[in-house]
Structure formats: C-alpha cells, structure tokens
C-alpha cells in the first residue's frame, strides 16, 4: 500500500510526541506540507503522561535561551494553538532546606545574571512562607521563577496536533517507522505495516526510540531509555498554587485545581521500550514520598491513588539533541529531552521549522548538535 491519495509531503516527521507535533505545527504555519508518522497514537508516551511542569527554573545554562523563548510562547499559547492547554502560571519554586543549599542557589543566580537572564530570584524564609504557607519550618529560602507554571500534557500535545491538522498537516498513527533511506534527494520512509512514504526532508522526533532512527543513517547516539515516575493523591483542600521542587533532593510537587496533588521529580522506574511498558520501583516511590513527608507535613495523611511512569530519552549530558544530522542532508533531529522537554516543546518546533525553511535559526543551538558525542 502506498500513500497516493494525498499529495506528497514536503516533510515527514517521525514521532507524534509534543516535539513532533510542534514541528508539524510550525512547518504547517509556513505552508509546508507535513506528514507525521506515529507508531502508537499521538501523546501516548512522555508527552502525554508527564508532570506538565512549564519550568525555566534550574535549567542547564545551554537550555536557558531556548527555555526563555519558549516561555513567551507558553504565555500566548492560546494564540498559537487555539486552546489554553490548561496552562496556569503561578511560578515555580525550588526550596532550600539548609544555608548551604541557599548558597548554591545564590551562586546560580549570579551566573544567570552575568549571562543577562533575570527570571530566577532568591527569596528568603518570609517570602517562601507567604508563597507556600504549608512548607516545613526548616526550609530557609528558595529559588523562584515567577513566570513559570504548569499545563496539562495530553491536552497540550493534542492541541498542537489539532492545530497542525487544521493547517493541513496529516497524521498517520499506528505504524512504526522501520526503515529510512535516501535516494536521489528523496527520503523513503517505511513503516511496520509495509507502507512507504516519500519526502525531501525528514525530522526525527522519535523520543526514546530516536537513537534507532539515527542509527539508520549511521549516526549512533548514546541515548539512555529512562522511566521517570509520578504519583497522584486523592483530593485534598486546595492549599498551594506554585509548583515546588527542592534543591538537595528530587521533587516536583503540584496541586491541581481539583485538589489532587501530583508528586514526582524524576525518580526512575524501569522502561521496557520494545513492549511500550514501564515498571515502577516502589523503593524509589517511597523515597519520593519521604521527601514530601519532610517538606509538606500537611500531606502525611494524604492517600496515593495512582502512580505511573513514562518512557523518556536521556542523553549523557542531560540536554537534548537539536539540529541537522551530521551524516545526511535534509534530516533534522529533535530528541533526548532528558525528562524536561515539555516546556521546550513550543520553541523547539519553531527552531526545527526555521532550520528547514530558512537554513538557520536565531537561537543558540550549537550545544545540542548531535556531533558532540562523536569521539
């Protein structure tokens, strides 16, 4: 079977996560014909099940310019995708439990300020108390990024997909790309069900499976498949607005408007990517619960009703791969977001569209080039 019914796409995007959908949207906005190939269904993996944290706070300095640009898109997300994506901005806070931790965050702010970024600020105990009245007494201060927030991941990814479709993109779900070959300036992309698609340009946004696509073009990458875990509580009376993390330990803590509290932060279960399956590690979940016990005494009686994990790609340096392939022309990568790629979704799609339609982008993406792993 061949996809003859509709006109040949200009670009094939492999992967229907937020990054694939965002690339599809930005390309469609520029009149490029896009076909997205997704092996399961859109937002089935990391992009649909993550914590929804929209965070500039605490990012690797290489990511900061992208994150800041993405934040601007988040604050106008309705204009971009015709849906507010459940985005709310009540700030994100990283709590310091000791003076030493507070020193660490002060040093970080100094570094950012020197680079010209002012979105992160150090606050003392009093302001921390007023922003987060429920925080444990021992916390001495915090790092805060007031423009940060959270959104609803599945809804967000779906909204990107919907808008892209409205602008002419096509989505083919339920068939994994198994082969990729370039001949005479045209890519041939084959899926598991035997279908073949052709386009001059391909985007690899295959998340935790992206190394396999890269390997097809002789470009191996040290991608680690991880399974960050989350858990959610039964409803408790609303008591907190910002998303809270910690400086010295792993935490992400957020209450939804309906009262349920989402607890995570990146503790890992186990991923079996060939089976689309994850397994939880309850000794790690327990460590996470212990952190909440320490930082939010009011949560000790809460009940946990569900936990889960998503399959995500992590790179050794914890920052993604973004940009052109090092071995083949007309192939662009966008993967390896290392458990914090949701916030970057809106901007990285734009960057990929820039690269494809204009040959360059105004954001600094050199740190993310795939060639950095070559010995």
């Amino acid at each position, binding site marked *: 079977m061949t996809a003859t019914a509709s006109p040949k796409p200009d670009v094939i995007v492999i992967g229907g996560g937020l990054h694939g959908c965002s690339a599809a949207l930005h390309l469609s906005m520029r009149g490029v014909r896009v076909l997205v190939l997704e092996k399961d269904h859109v937002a089935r993996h990391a992009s649909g*099940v993550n914590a929804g944290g929209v965070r500039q706070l605490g990012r690797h300095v290489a990511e900061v310019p992208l994150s800041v640009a993405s934040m601007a898109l988040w604050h106008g997300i309705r204009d971009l995708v015709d849906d507010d994506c459940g985005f709310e901005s009540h700030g994100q806070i990283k709590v310091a439990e000791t003076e030493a931790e507070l020193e660490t965050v002060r040093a970080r702010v100094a570094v950012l300020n020197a680079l010209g970024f002012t979105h992160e600020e150090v606050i003392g105990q009093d302001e921390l108390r007023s922003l987060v009245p429920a925080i444990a007494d021992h916390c001495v201060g915090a790092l805060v990024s007031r423009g940060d927030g959270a959104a609803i991941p599945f809804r967000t990814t*779906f909204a990107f997909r919907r808008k892209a479709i409205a602008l002419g993109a096509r989505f083919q779900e339920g068939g994994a790309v198994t082969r990729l070959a370039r001949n005479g300036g045209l890519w041939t992309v084959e899926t598991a069900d035997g279908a073949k698609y052709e386009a001059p340009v391909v985007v690899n946004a295959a998340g935790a499976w992206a190394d396999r696509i890269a390997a097809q073009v002789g470009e191996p990458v040290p991608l680690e498949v991880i399974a960050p875990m989350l858990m959610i509580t039964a409803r408790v009376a609303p008591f907190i607005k910002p998303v809270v993390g910690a400086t010295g330990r792993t935490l992400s803590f957020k209450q939804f408007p309906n009262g349920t509290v989402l607890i995570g932060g990146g503790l890992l279960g186990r991923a079996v990517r060939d089976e689309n399956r994850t397994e939880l590690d*309850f000794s790690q979940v*327990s*460590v996470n619960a212990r952190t909440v016990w320490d930082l939010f005494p009011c949560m*000790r009686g*809460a009940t*946990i009703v569900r936990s889960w994990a998503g399959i995500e790609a992590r790179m050794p340096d914890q920052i993604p791969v973004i940009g052109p392939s090092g071995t083949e022309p007309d192939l662009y990568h966008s993967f390896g977001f290392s458990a914090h790629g949701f916030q970057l979704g809106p901007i990285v799609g734009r960057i990929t569209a820039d690269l494809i339609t204009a040959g360059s982008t105004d954001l600094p993406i050199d740190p993310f080039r795939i060639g950095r792993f070559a010995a």
Partner: protein
Amino acid sequence: MSAQGSKFDFDIAVVGSGPAGLAAAALAASKGASVVLLDEQAEPGGQIYRAVTETPVRDRKVLGPDYWHGAELLGPLRDSGATHWPGTTVWSVARPREDAADGSRPIQIGLSRNGAASMLTVRHVILATGALERPFPIPGWTLPGVLGAGAAQVLLKTSGLVPSGATVMAGSGPLLWLLAWQYLQAGARIDAILDTTPRENWRAALPLLPGFLRSPYLGKGMKLMLDVRRKLTVIGNVTSLRAESGLAGGKGGEGVLKSVVYTRNGTEHRLPADTLLLHHGVIPNLNLANATGCAQRWDEQQRCWRPTTDEWGATSVEGVSLAGDGAGIGGARAAEEAGRLTALDALYRLGRIGREQRDQSAAPFRAALDRALTGRAFLDTLYTPAEAFRVPADDTIVCRCEEVTAGAVREAVRLGCSGPNQAKSFLRCGMGPCQGRLCGPTVTEVIAAERNVSPAEVGYYRLRPPVKPITLAELAALPKTDADIDAVFKH
C-alpha cells in the same frame, strides 16, 4: 530483600480468600509449599461466603445452604498450614525481572497491613480477586439511597442489616433474585422488582437452554425465582430507569433518592423509593491482574474484559496465575475447582510435583469444574444487560470519581480520542480512587459505540499500582536500602 523462610518470603502468595483462594491456598500448602493467603477483608469467605465465620445472621435459612457451604472450606485451610493474613490489602504485584543478575525470578508484592506497608517476596502468585458488580450507570445513580445490590448484600451478611423504608430493586441476573430471596427470608420490605432483562434475550438464549437444564443451578434458581415472584411485585420488560431526588415532577439534583422512574412498554411510571438497589450482573475484578501487566481480552458473551489464561489459570506473565471469577465469571463452585487447578500447576512449576502427578490429581477437579460451568452460556446470554443500561445517554455520569458524563466521553471521541486511555488523559475519567472499577466497562462501551467498532478494538484502561489507595505515610515508611537513597541524592 529477605532470605527464604523469613516472615516476608513465601513460595506462593494467594490474593483473595473467596472460594477460589481458600481452595488454592489449602491445596498448595497441604503439599508442603509455603503459602500466604492475603485478603483485605477481616474474615475469609470472599463475596459469596462473606463473613461466614462471624455473621450475626444466625437463622441458616436466611442466607441459604449455598452460603453455609463456605464454612466447609475453612477446615482444610486451617489444617494445611498456610499462613493466613486477613486485613491485608495487596496494592501491587511486580512481575519478575528478566534481567536479574543471579537468574532468580522473584515476584515482589506490595501490601498494606495494620496501617503499615511492606513488600513480600514470593515465587508464584495466584490472584483470586473475584468479581465486581457491573457498573449500572443510570441518571441519578450517584444519589444517596442508590446502591449496588451486592453492596447491600454485604451489609446483610456482615451486619444483618436490611434496607428501611420504600425499597425498589432493579436490574437482572441471578444475584438480584438471590438477594430478593434472602431479604424475603429476613422479613425485609421490598416494594417492587423492576426486571430489565431484555425480552429479545430469550430468543438468543433459548437454543442454549438444553445445557442449562443439566446445570446444578437450575433447580435452586427456579425455586428461588418462583418464591420471589409469588411474594413480591415483579415488573418485567423495563427499558429505562432514572433515580430522582424529587417526587412527581421534581427535578433531579441535590438531595437524596425520593423516587424511581421507569419505562415499561413505552409508558413512564414512577415509584416512591428511599432505597434503590441496582444490579445487572458481575464482571471480573481485573485491576490487580491488569496492573501486573497480564494480557486481557474482550469476552463478547459476558460483555466484559477478562485476563487471558490457559487451562491452568496461567496468565501471560510468568509466575502469575488467576483463579475464580477474577478470570471470567463462573460462580462459586467453579471458582473453588479452578483454585485447586491453579494450585496444582503452581506446585508443578515450583518443582514440588511432577507433570504426571499434576495431571492425575487435576482430573476430578476438572470434571467438577466442567459440571459447575454447565449452563453458564444460557445465563450469560439471557442476562446480558440491554444496551441502554451499558451505553448511557449523554447526561448520565459514567465516572463518579471525576464526574465525567457519557456526553463528555463522546465529545472526546469526536476530538480524536480513540480509546479509554486517551479519554483518561483527556478527561481524567478513571483516574480517581476507584481506578476505573466504576467506569471502565462503560467508557469502553461508550467509545466503541460512538466509533462504531467492537470494544475489543478500543481496549481498556492501562491500570497502575497502587491498585488500592495507600497513604503517603505508609509509602514513605516502606523499608529502603541505602543504595536507594544514594541513587536519589546523586540524581
């Protein structure tokens, strides 16, 4: 974590102490395996024999002879040497890791007992988690005063409680008749039974009648039904139901149940009611099996999902088997025999008995199982609930935890949600404390009907542990190794 023979290490864990679990644990332990029997209830017995050791209902004729058979399963359990932990909720079963360094393949069970969580290590798990009442979503089913007939029966068995005030029972299936009969024996007031069994079902069921004529249930069932019909008002061919908090003309909404509105032969009628007991059959309680990763399939005849098992109850996950109604509805006697068969297979897999011994010992149990299942197809077909009660109208709530209506699910389908997992991500339905027990089957059927495909194609929720809520305090206090804590601080 702990050495074999310790308090937290057994050959076999049996989850559920209904007929399936009781029989499985007793047989496995009697052959020398170390067995632990876990059940969240304070007493053994499961659903059918609920509270059989302690029930205040002393008059044996109220609950009937089938109920008292349960007591006979307790002696063998006691004599077998199995460890019995009642009051223990199992919230997770982790399949064996295929990458364990030493080649051992233990299964970890997360449980909660006396307010403390802990992990148990076993080599085989028999899930005997039984059945649940099929959700019965009608307008107003969330009103106080409306409850499942099974839940009402639990109150009768455990506390001798019967409803007070005007009471209406509605639905179909053997359990509805059984409860009505038990209430009659107990002298409770039942104003009417609204029978929703679709008339057309008879046509489909009739060819299966010969099988049912040989069923052990036939005689008992007929007598019970005749008794009930003689003494109570039974209204048949009911095609729609609504629970309302107002009396005639009143609007639904706040408050408690005041009346039941039903349609019969195209005409609407109203009955005053303080209690409405709903029931239209039971379906496998597959939450634990699903969360463990056991494959499941759609059973068109029973119109429910059931875990895939072989003739020994083995699931798709190594070391995990299923017995009883949790593997597909067969009733109490079938559950008991299936329990024995899974126990024999577990003993074989653990190397305690040979294949030949397993097969020989199994023969009488298998014959008894076949007898117990005779006539099932007739009952399943006759009592398949009408579409109107499985696929409710737009304004009916399907997910009670998150208050999601059937209309919202249909809207999500129109936006591109193709199955329950997307609906869950989209609407949060099934994300509440019940983990889909009260909405899963309905959401599957609503999506299937809206997309005009089979439920098998739209699938079911992927469930995750904890399958039962546990407190943050309990989780936080789970034993941790230093390595766990290091791994976290290094991250």
